């Protein structure tokens, strides 16, 4: 149970890395999140999350030689590990099972309004 601990932002990062497949490095991940979720992401928050996920063995990284525009700095690409996949699936299935457990009536906003009145 504990080993699948995944925060909300961490989950977003994992999903983004998965979406980007083999083009997932700092710059692209950040842009992807910003465009898809329409929210600003600081480099610090992103890098910290990536580091944590790597420490948890949900991600692996590999460096590739840098391009001219990066002043020769390497790009660090991230990939989902098997463990990472398990974690994502675990999170998804728990979410789903929770969604399934919601009785229809509790989300019936009309009824709720009536009930409150």
């Amino acid at each position, binding site marked *: 149970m504990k080993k699948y601990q995944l925060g909300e932002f961490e989950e977003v990062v994992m999903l983004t890395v998965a979406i980007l497949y083999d083009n997932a*490095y700092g710059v692209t991940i950040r842009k992807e999140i910003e465009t898809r979720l329409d929210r600003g992401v600081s*480099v610090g928050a992103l890098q910290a999350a990536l580091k944590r996920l790597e420490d948890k063995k949900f991600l692996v990284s590999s460096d590739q030689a840098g391009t001219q525009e990066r002043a020769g*700095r390497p790009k660090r690409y991230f990939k989902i590990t098997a463990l990472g996949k398990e974690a994502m699936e675990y999170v998804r299935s728990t979410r789903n099972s929770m969604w399934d457990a919601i009785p229809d009536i509790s989300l019936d906003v009309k009824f709720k309004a009536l009930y409150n009145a």
Partner: protein
Amino acid sequence: MPNPPKLFLKFLKWFCNPNLHKPIEGDLLEFYDENVELHGKRRADLIFIKDVLLLFRKDIIKPLGGTYSLNTFGMLSHQIKLAFRSFKRFKNSFLINILGLSTGLTAVLLIYLWINDELSVDRFHQNDKQLYQALQNINNPDETFTLTNTPALLAQTLEEELPEVEMSASMIPVGSYGSDRVIQYEDRKLKMDDIYASEKFFEVFSYELVSGDTKEVLSKKENVLVSESFGSSLFGETDPIGKVVQVQESEDTRTYIISGVFADLPKESSKQFDVIFTMDAFLDLHPHIREWGNSDPSTFLVLKENTDVDQLSSKIENFISTKEEGYRHTLFLQKYSERYLNGNYENGQIAGGRILYVKLFSAIAILVLVIACINFVNLSTARVSRRIKEIGVKKAIGATRGSLISQFIVEAGLIISMSMVIAVMATILLLPSFNALTGKSILLTFDWSIIQFLFIVTLVTTILSGGYPALYLSGFSTLNLFQGRVKGSFAELWARKGLVIFQFAVSVVLITSVLVVSSQVDFILNRDLGFQKDHIIYFNSDGSLQENATAFIDELKKETSVINAAQFGHDLLGNRGQTSGVRWEGKGPDEFVQFGNLEIGYDLIETFNLELIAGRSFSDEHGDDGRKILFNEEAIKVMGIEDPIGKTVNLWGYDREVIGVVKNFHFESLHKEITPCFFQFTNAASSIVVRIQSGNELRTIERLEEIYQAHNPGLPFTFKFFDDEYDALYRSELQISTLAKYFGAVAILISCLGLFGLVAFTTERRQKEIGIRKVLGSSEFNLMMLLSSDFSKMVAIGILIALPISYLLVNGWLESFAYRIDLDFTFFLSSGLISMGIAWITLGFQTLKAAKSNPVESLRYE
């Protein structure tokens, strides 16, 4: 292409985990370039800076430990870990070190607090740096005496005539004109400790005024001030200001008005008083003091800054003779706050005082600490063979000498810090008893100065005890270490032996001193003084007792529990009058003899059980009065009168008939020899002495109080036990002797701990040798002798060195007593035997264990 701000790139590089640094920097640069195109350089710079700052967070910053450039931290934690492991492995020496060092540090801490307290006395005055007291030297042909009394006009005149003097105050100290004087408000009467002080008293001294104006409170003759607590016991809840109080002066009752209240005096003040009258009131009562020829008040001067005090002191040396022709006493200045510690004068020179004890205890503190450090040094260097491999491996894989040194220093520092923590706790626990012993009220407050002190002591102790072992242990060559060739050189062995010898020498000096001091103090307290000091109480002839003392005493004598009672103008405690005004037949014109002047009533000789060797004492039946006189043996001897009874001598111009001779007795401190004295008759003495029966003192005292109250309604009955007061004369000797006992015990304890550790170690090292010897038929006794002979030799040498030193020390101290014990050989013999004995017990404990061990145990593994 524009570049992002360099400073922030550098900052990033500085804090960022090097694993992450390059890709992150790459990402940032990519964003930067994009932002420059989108928003321009300025905006891009700002975004860059913001990103860098937001990167400064837990997961990105490089870790403190590890193998990165903050290596020192990693090394330190490694060293601390190793230190704890070595404590665990060598539990014995760890415990011995902790025990020795914490005991030593506790002693040091207590002594520091005591010394600090001594040094703080009288230093709280704001003018402290410029505050001086003028003292007078009386230059007699054979000896110069120093007086604190000066003419009353001196302070004011010096202030007016000398530009160097900024302010002045004069003061009559407590008790100069009779102690326990009584102040009355309405019906309430209280005894007071009063002083008379001149107008600028509160400007010169920084005693705090609770109400009243600094410049005004002593300006009018009838003004009087009380302390806060005295005021509340005299006036209760009501405001004292403006209240009218009465004081009985010798003939008439004077009225004073409370003009101010001062805060209770801090304990750092050497002068303690609770009521202040004005100097003008004093001069009114004693007009003759106004003359230059008479000295009474103390004179205090606040000098202007940058005054050359020595020069001023010699400038005013003959100041009084310019006012009073033929005046031969000379003046000199002493800093006021220094008088508490340097209050003794010899031949007109300042000759120490309590500063002696301060120095003595500083020396003891240092010695005790050094002894504890020596233990540490000895144990860690002796242990070297056990750590060869550790050091060897470290050296082989590239440890520098510096890092080895720092490891041993860290180890020492750790032990010492732990000992310091224990010592601080022990000090807090011991302080109440220490205060009771020294009569102080010291508190351990963690202010800046004490923290500094603790830090410095920890540091110094670490360097003292860790320094040599660190240099020694790290100095071996790697090759020698692995071959096990670290046999200490001859010099090193001797260094260790020398340290043990030193420890025991110090211990023996301390033990000898303790023995001598305590037997001298015993000698004083139990000496046959020539009178009986037990079961005597005394009190002042207050109030109406001054007129009808005789009736009062007669009433007392009717009580069965009262053995005897008499009036007395002296207390046999050193406070006495002295005169040279005795003339007798055959006295040479230049002969100058000081006589002690004791004024007594009927039955005093009997009350104190003084022994008469000729004649009789004053007696009612003979109707004796001021025309009769008694002498002590010494006086008769000095005057050379044979068969003195019935002879006539002249006192202050009046003829007196000698009616008795009293056997010599000690009428002042045993620091002084018995001098000539005489008894003259009085029926209005300052105090009353009562000898009571033993056994029922409480009841008797209650009864005395009833009679006293009948004569002095409303006046509190305060009395003193004579033997308590007598013992108090030697309080500082008693305190020093008890303190010395404790610290001596601490020193020998720590020395023995060290010895214990060393012996334990060597016997452990020689286990196999012992086993083989036993197998070959050595007896247990032989083995013990073998193991302890080396150490016995060291201890013996220590003792031999210590004896002459301790002889010189205690002899010097004893010379300050006129009546002292003989310094015979037994003191040195017994202190030598004591330390030898303790050392042998320590040795025997370990060697017996080693000798008794089954050789199988030690030889099995071969």
